[in-house]
């Protein structure tokens, strides 16, 4: 069995497509989010005639933080609803970073909200900051839905702690992931106290309606895109492992067969989250890029065996059922704005680049692929790449360490020497974070504008 898959019809069709760059909806989305936050603050402003003293100010600060936290909580969940507009247009990596940032921020707001409100209530009852714990216990006992809210807040704190850098590196990915799923429970539990004790919602029925609409639509989106869509996808395409092939030491390709795979809507450069229904693997899903454009009956991923999961891929039996969610990712042909394209791959980052190299529209001489690896033995998929380069009249270059271990020179100067018109190129970049950072700076130094460097990074 050869690792090379012949070019398919879908791939050729993609090649014919003209260049139509699509703008990322990130900026309008951020503006809408900001407008929503302003609306939430206005809600408070409108319902607060005056602040008589410090007590009132502390409570008001508690209310503002609480309102914003309630608003952002819905958005934090929305960011992980796998909405195609976010995953494929903004980019999964960027949305994941937004999620991580806004998650931390929201949790900080939640903590500030609890402390401020309880301090304010304690002041109101003529007590001091020291009585805040007693005040919290009283409030949880006496106020409606506060028991639920307290449990939900506790969960949020646990989820937050499990995501702090050192803690997250200590615990297995699966555990972290499943703890993270508790966010849904926490969101549900903390929702009700907002409506039943939140001044703005008790007084203003329109605000209540808006809140139901916000949380209701997020729930609907999560249900649709995280449950219904994957179920439909997998019922329709029925993926199974066809073969596992060792490309180079430590890098394996998994070939999967299924029905009408070209109808999955996947493009070169995108990835799926894969769950292999084999013992020990069925409870975790991992994102791997397609290493070839999808064929009607075949998909391929290529994975470097670094973690437990990727090492276990080697042992997969042909016929194992596969549960896929996707396609996700914005690193596709629609990103390009120029005729000429430079693809830069570092190590296993070759996978999406390999698919793009095959399918990116372009005449002979328009495409260049620069492949960085430790040694020539580590240049996975090299034979395929050479074949594609020959067929398409594309340039293929590699950079490996010299025999004495010296790293190759990838700098602004060396890039300009190799490609004198580099500033006319769109650059697609994929590789380990340190490598990507270095290449990014070299590219900028060589005169490539930032908006033409397309990159995905899953480092948080």
């Amino acid at each position, binding site marked *: 069995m050869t690792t090379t898959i012949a070019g398919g019809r879908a791939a050729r069709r993609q090649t014919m497509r003209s260049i139509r760059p699509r703008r990322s909806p990130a900026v309008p989305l951020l503006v809408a989010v900001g407008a929503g936050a302003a609306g939430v603050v206005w809600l408070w402003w409108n319902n607060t*005639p005056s602040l008589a003293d410090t007590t009132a100010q502390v409570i*008001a600060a508690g209310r503002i933080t609480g309102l914003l936290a309630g608003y952002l909580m819905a958005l934090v969940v929305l960011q992980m609803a796998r909405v195609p507009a976010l995953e494929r247009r903004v980019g999964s990596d960027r949305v994941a970073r937004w999620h991580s940032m806004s998650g931390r921020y929201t949790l900080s707001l939640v903590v500030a909200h609890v402390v401020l409100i309880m301090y304010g209530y304690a002041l*109101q009852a003529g007590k001091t900051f020291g009585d805040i714990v007693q005040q919290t216990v009283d409030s949880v006992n006496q106020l409606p839905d506060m028991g639920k809210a307290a449990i939900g807040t506790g969960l949020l704190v646990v989820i937050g702690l499990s995501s702090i850098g050192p803690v997250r590196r200590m615990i297995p990915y699966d555990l972290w992931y499943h703890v993270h799923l508790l966010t849904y429970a926490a969101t549900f539990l903390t929702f009700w106290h907002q409506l039943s004790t939140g001044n703005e919602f008790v007084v203003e029925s329109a605000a209540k309606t808006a809140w139901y609409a916000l949380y209701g639509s997020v729930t609907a989106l999560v249900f649709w895109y995280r449950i219904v869509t994957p179920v439909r996808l997998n019922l329709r395409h029925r993926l199974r492992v066809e073969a596992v092939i060792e490309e180079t030491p430590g890098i394996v390709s998994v070939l999967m067969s299924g029905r009408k795979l070209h109808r999955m809507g996947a493009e070169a450069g995108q990835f799926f989250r894969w769950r292999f229904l084999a013992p020990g693997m069925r409870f975790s899903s991992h994102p791997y890029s397609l290493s070839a454009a999808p064929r009607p009956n075949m998909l391929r991923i290529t994975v470097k065996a670094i973690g437990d999961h990727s090492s276990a891929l080697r042992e997969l039996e042909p016929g194992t059922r596969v549960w896929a969610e996707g396609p996700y990712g914005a690193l596709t042909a629609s990103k390009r704005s120029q005729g000429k394209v430079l693809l830069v791959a570092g190590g296993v980052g070759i996978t999406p680049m390999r698919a793009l190299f095959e399918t990116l529209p372009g005449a002979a001489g328009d495409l260049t692929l620069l492949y960085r690896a430790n040694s020539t033995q580590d240049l996975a998929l090299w034979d395929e790449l050479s074949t594609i380069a020959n067929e398409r009249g594309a340039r293929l270059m590699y950079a490996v360490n010299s025999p004495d271990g010296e790293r190759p020179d990838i700098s602004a100067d060396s890039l300009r020497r190799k490609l004198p018109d580099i500033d006319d190129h769109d650059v697609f970049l994929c590789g380990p974070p340190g490598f990507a950072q270095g290449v990014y700076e070299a590219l900028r130094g060589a005169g490539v504008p930032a908006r033409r460097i397309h990159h995905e990074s899953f480092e948080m």
Partner: protein
Amino acid sequence: MKKSHPFRRVMLASAATVSGIVLLLTLKPSSDPGSAQAAGALPQQTAPAQESAQGGASVKDGTFTGDTIQTQYGPVQVRVTVSGGKITKADALQAPKGGRSDQISGDAIPKLNKEAIASGTEGIDAVSGASYTSAGYGKSLQSALDKASAGPGATGGGGGAQAATVTGDAVDTQYGPVQVRVTVSGGKITKAEAVQQPKGGRSDQISGDAVPKLNKEAVAAGSANIDAISGASYTSAGYKKSLQSALDKVPAAESAKGKGTGAAPADPPAGSAAGSAAGSGAAQSGAAAGGATSDGGGTYTGAVVQTEYGPVQVRVTLTKGRITSASAVQAPKGGRSDQVSGDAIPKLNQEAVTVGDGDIDAVSGASYTSAGYKKSLQSALDQAGG
């Protein structure tokens, strides 16, 4: 792929959030003239109470129950025991309940009770963090004291201290009849409710939504001059008509409104909403307009009204029912208040003469003084009317 600076980002986000919230908090006034309905009701209550106390021996001994006052968070009702012209016991028969209100009421009501006793009959200050409850408590307390006051002392100040409950005509709207019942006390509407309202299907929703708002509006406006609720224009119009007819029925002896009715045009027979609104003669200002018309002239000194910055008291001279001269006997003094008063009082005097009745606008930058001025002016006009 810009270099990420996690620490800098955290600092920026925290600084932006904290300064944003602090900015919002500082932009809010420490007490808002717009909410005078709630908080400002307190000082207002003191005027007649003071008067009756000073008037001497006009407070009967006994136990008196005040009106039920609806606040944003629920009803408040106060019962006082008066002995030797002083409150010896005060308690709340009703207080906001449920959720956070339990905590607040549990905390504020004992304080308010204490305050009521300590103050004698002079009115109370709001308890911090419970401004709505305090305002409701103050109003209910005042109505209890009004009941305790026998005769002239109280009637002179408030223009009729007794509460009267009147039911307006049933007004047919496109969606069904609307009928309003109001309780008028001290020349003010203290309670408004709909005895009948459009029912069935969508009307249940609309009425359920609009009627409480209209009730609130009626209490806030003190007259039938209320705004229609969006999405419930027929109900609003019917409500307004019925409310007007109720106000027209308030007996002359029991309310300041009675005097206003004498001069106000008869209830327009099923007239337009605008017509009835124009003819309404607010329970308060109607008294002034009506009273002034029937009376000749003279000089009257209004009640002392306490504002945040000090007392305001207005004296007016009336000729043929119009204000020909107005001056402030007292105005806020000291520090910045000298400047504000020095600037605002002449303007307010001028306005009172120009307008000819109590319906003057606030002077910008002197909203508290203006509000106090207006109240005192009104009480002077009430005297002229009575």
